[in-house]
């Protein structure tokens, strides 16, 4: 196993009305290739901030982030964009599709950033849509015309179209009901099984079970890591282990 993403002493603070609030106070962590890492923690702990930092969506104050052997912390915004299109996929909490295009175009637009062959990308997209159970008819719809579950599944297709090194997901089930949430989680588990590295932020224990590793964030630092092993629905020991891990940290 090789390390795909490594954070060393990452610090980040926000200035609000000239008052500085330190959100990340020196985060160290390491994600291996093929991990399904779950980030948990109480509200306001800095989970989203950490995710932005790791995925290069936001710059950090100090520290180092090594992503696929690149030191991305010093990248300019545009260099970061180019980096993201190849190495990162994103699934957001809410439907974050471009509202002026159909679902298929949303995926194509992302895909066209990495290749010039529209045909190739189209074929790939259609295969992936089939996999997430979105029919041709729905693919031609606009984001305003589809359900939240469909939007999230389309978002996943967009996230993996360029075969990124890491898929980042911030509460991907946050705005979905239970059964739709399960479908999305099943999908993520599926792509994880086929070798995709995933980093997911969640509040929900049942979502967290899906990961093989849970990183607890507290007070801007990593407050513990729980190695769970591969997900197995019937494995109660795994559930217990995570419950204890979280209880110890005041969850």
């Amino acid at each position: 196993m090789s390390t795909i993403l490594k954070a060393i002493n990452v610090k980040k603070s926000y200035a609000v009305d000239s008052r500085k609030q330190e959100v990340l106070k020196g985060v160290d962590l390491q994600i291996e290739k093929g991990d399904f890492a779950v980030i948990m923690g109480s509200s306001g702990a800095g989970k989203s901030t950490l995710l932005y930092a790791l995925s290069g969506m936001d710059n950090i104050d100090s520290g180092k982030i090594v992503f696929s052997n690149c030191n991305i912390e010093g990248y300019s915004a545009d260099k970061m964009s180019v980096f993201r299109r190849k190495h990162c996929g994103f699934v957001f909490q809410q439907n974050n599709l471009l509202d002026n295009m159909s679902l298929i175009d949303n995926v194509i637009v992302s895909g066209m950033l990495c290749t010039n062959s529209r045909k190739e990308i189209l074929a790939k997209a259609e295969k992936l849509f089939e996999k997430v159970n979105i029919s041709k008819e729905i693919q031609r719809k606009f984001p305003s015309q589809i359900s939240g579950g469909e939007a999230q599944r389309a978002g996943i297709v967009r996230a993996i179209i360029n075969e990124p090194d890491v898929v980042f997901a911030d509460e991907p089930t946050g705005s979905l009901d239970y059964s739709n949430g399960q479908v999305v989680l099943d999908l993520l588990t599926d792509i994880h099984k086929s070798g995709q590295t995933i980093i997911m932020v969640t509040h929900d224990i049942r979502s967290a079970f899906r990961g093989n590793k849970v990183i607890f964030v507290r007070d801007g630092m990593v407050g513990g890591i729980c190695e769970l092993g591969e997900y197995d629905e019937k494995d109660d020991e795994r559930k217990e282990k995570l419950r204890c891990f979280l209880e110890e940290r005041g969850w």
Partner: protein
Amino acid sequence: MKRILLLTFANLRRSGGQNAFLTFLITLITLFCVLSLTVMLGFMSCFDKAAEKADAPEIFVAGQNELFDADNKNILDTDSRVERTVYSDVLYLDSAQITFAGTKKSVALIAMPLDKQEYKSYEIVEEMDDIPENAIYVSRYFKESGDYELGERFDIRYDKIVYHFVIAGFTEDIYLGCVHSDTQTGVVLPEDDYVNFANRFSSNENGKVADIYIKDKEQAQAVMSDFLNKAETGTSKYCSMTYDVCRNYATMEPSIMAILLLSFAVLLLIIALSVTVYIIRGNLVREIKNISILKSIGYSSNSITLSFALQYTILTLIGAVIGGILSFVVYSKIAGSMQSLTWIAIKTAITPVMPVYVMLVIMSIFFMVSYITALKLRKVSPCKAFNSAQEQVNTFKKDVMPVYKSRLPFHVSMAVKMFFGSFKQNLMMIAVLAIISFVLGYVAVLNYNISVDTKKFVDVLMYEYADITAYANPTNYYDDLDAILGSEEGADDAIFFETLQVQTGNVNMYAYVTNDYGRTRNDSIVYEGCHPSAENEIAIGGKSAVYFNKSIGDTISLDSSGNKCEYTITGLIQTSMDNGFDCELTTDGYKRINPGFKPNTVLIYLKENVDTDAFLDTIIQKHQSQISGAVNTKLTIEQSMGSYVSLVDGLLISFSFISVVIIWILLYLLIKVQLRRNDRNFRIQKAIGFTSWQIRLEVFLSFVPVGAVGAVIGGLLIFLLANKFSNTLFGTMGIMQADFIISYPMVAAILVMLMTVTFLLTFIITDRIKYIVPKSKNML
């Protein structure tokens, strides 16, 4: 209401730049409206007041004594519509020549003794302390616009004799202040001087002024026509005018300025309204979350809509108040130059009612437009507050040019998507750009015609003119004087061209008379049909054609010296000189009503690059016995156009300056709104790996059709409408078809320039895209 105001002010605080721009536009609109309306209405009402104070009659008739014999007087006395008629004895010098602002004008000169007759409507407004010999009092118009000062020499040329006077004072008078070529002009002499002056003429020049007061103002034209119809006018010369016509003459030039200003204000209003609609639509998208939240906590659609509308009404109020205050300041500065354009001291100020009135009208327009635009937010459902927060008001349904099918390069197809994504906004922007290009182009066309290639403009304003005008010596008359002068070294051609007076029915008309219209040079005069070529043919002024209800092919009868003849109309002409009441005849044609006629005036056209002054000196010396005088017409025209041109020029320069400033701010705002509308999509694009440059390229490409189509439509409008627009503007002056030169390269250059500005600006402004960060609390 309190709640609504709360929302309104919260909204207002947010978009400072846009608000400032709208306020600025509304300030200009109010300013221009108040100024132009004040000039248009104020000048008229001020003229009315002056007339009332002077107790001016509704009808003014002046003429030689014959016109007022007992029989004719009786017509007026027995007319039940006439209240009373006041007669004053005067000297009536028909076609006397005076110089006004460097131009020779032929007027019916009426001279009267100071304080010694019934006619008392003039008032002396300025006077020398010591009255000199040969003193004369003339209208203050001579001072304001005619380049005369107290103590200066004033010459009257009548029947080949020049009479010298010294200006001892200026008067103000409703009817006699007028100094237009085809009207009367009055002068006042101290009693002794008057008697001396009168003694130099035969009884033929003795005349009267009749002030006819009538009961019903509306009847003025009818009463005047009836009198002149019934009266035995014989060969007597006279002139007549109703009060309304007089007032039109007096306020014509300021009115044209005012109309120009008002049309500009209307264009600005259209732009301001489009921008408002555009901004509100942009804001609705941005505010959708807030709106849905407000709705979910119980605000009604109506109060939110109202708060939007109120926001713009408040801006309008601020702009209008500033504009209103500014108008007082600006007016005090320009009042002087405006007033010099008429002969009554216009003491009008802006009435406080005017800005208030303009303000109310503009405010209600803005309230209505912004309210209707904001009505769209009714569609926002409160549940949007809780689920997917970023729904658009414009939910996209039709897939125009889907990317997955598109054969275009990737970024071009993205741009196409963006273009159609804001299709309505883009249409509006195209419209605004088209208006701006039209205004700029039109301003340029006017500027070009007035300052650069002035021939067309002068042609449209003048009748036939040449480089030099020479007058035949009646005591040593040569029938072929035109040929003699035309064969001079340097002369290209010379023709007899006379301006005479004829009558049709009871209406006076100027008649231009020459042998062969094929040799005249002003191609702008005939705007429909052709010049007369046979002796029974005539071309008449467009305005008189309308007045007499005649068209080409009809016949019209003219009389002069008691002879009456029929002519067939071959064409319609336009000149600004006589308010459209004029006609063209051939020399033989005119001889039918005046057989003894001998042409007297020779127009000499010079070859190119011939020194006009040198030529003038040569012919005056060489042909001393044959000509009584000659003038450099080109110079005279230049001088007389000068003040007018500089006024229009100044106006145009300030217009273009304002236009350019507006374009810059406007584009800045519109593009900013466009960026804001797409803010969320740009963030997502950045998140999935678009660089700033790629997004910038897309925005830029999506603006290319907007800028190009806007400019092209503007260009088309210039070609289609520029001259129609001019006709409306100059129509009051009798110009029916101003075929101004529209220089293709110039218009093309303007459009290219405008497009370049649009693209450059788009490029510069889209730089802010680099500040859009992919992450945002809103998104994740």
